[in-house]
């Protein structure tokens, strides 16, 4: 079961990946945790931020175990600093 996931990058992850967003094609269903693992291979510097990151799927904070669905919009939220 294939699916496309849209990943958007902000702040330091935008700097690390050099991208604002990209579409990742998954060959099988997986969790956001798994997706992060996949991306970490592509962008090794992301790993250091893992302990601090929260997950957002379709603009909602959700646990990393969340299973992704086709066309989900995923953002890995590094520590925020608005205000």
């Amino acid at each position, binding site marked *: 079961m294939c699916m496309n996931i849209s990943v*958007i990058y*902000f*702040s*330091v992850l*935008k*700097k690390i990946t050099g991208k604002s967003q990209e579409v990742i094609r998954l060959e099988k269903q997986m969790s956001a945790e798994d997706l992060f693992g996949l991306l970490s291979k592509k962008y090794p510097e992301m790993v*250091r*931020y893992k302990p*601090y990151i929260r997950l*957002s799927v379709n*603009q*909602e904070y959700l646990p990393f175990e969340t299973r992704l669905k086709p066309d989900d919009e995923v*953002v890995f*939220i*590094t*520590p*925020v*600093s*608005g*205000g």
Partner: protein
Amino acid sequence: MQEFKNGTYWILISDHLPELSVAGAFVQDPSCGAVNIFSGMTRNHHDGKSVTGLYYDCYEEMALKESKKLLDAITKEHNLTKALLFHKTGDAPVGEISLITALSAPHRKPVLEATEELINRLKQELPIWKKESYKGESLWKEEQLLKKEQQPS
């Protein structure tokens, strides 16, 4: 730019924010005796270093959704009459306002308490990131965090 506005709430995520008087006027109401307006702005120093400016990156659609949830929760909890939240995106040189909150209620106690809670929570919840520019270098807050964590204490 993202905006939500009805009779009770006004949320604006934008690279240009209206004047404080506009914020105050929105939350005023004949039933209200108290309005509190907090504004946060770029200051010229941080951790003993001279700051030349800030830059805010923002996941705007989600920031709008989270702001709505936040204003809704705070308004119910403190029985507020009207509530407003503006956040700037992009460049914010020294002195530039990046955050405005304005809350109204019949009496002063709830607006002061709610202001503190709102700011504490928005700093936790809104997907907005700050990059600080010092003389010669720019660092995201998360990069500074990692640097600090990796220093031997």
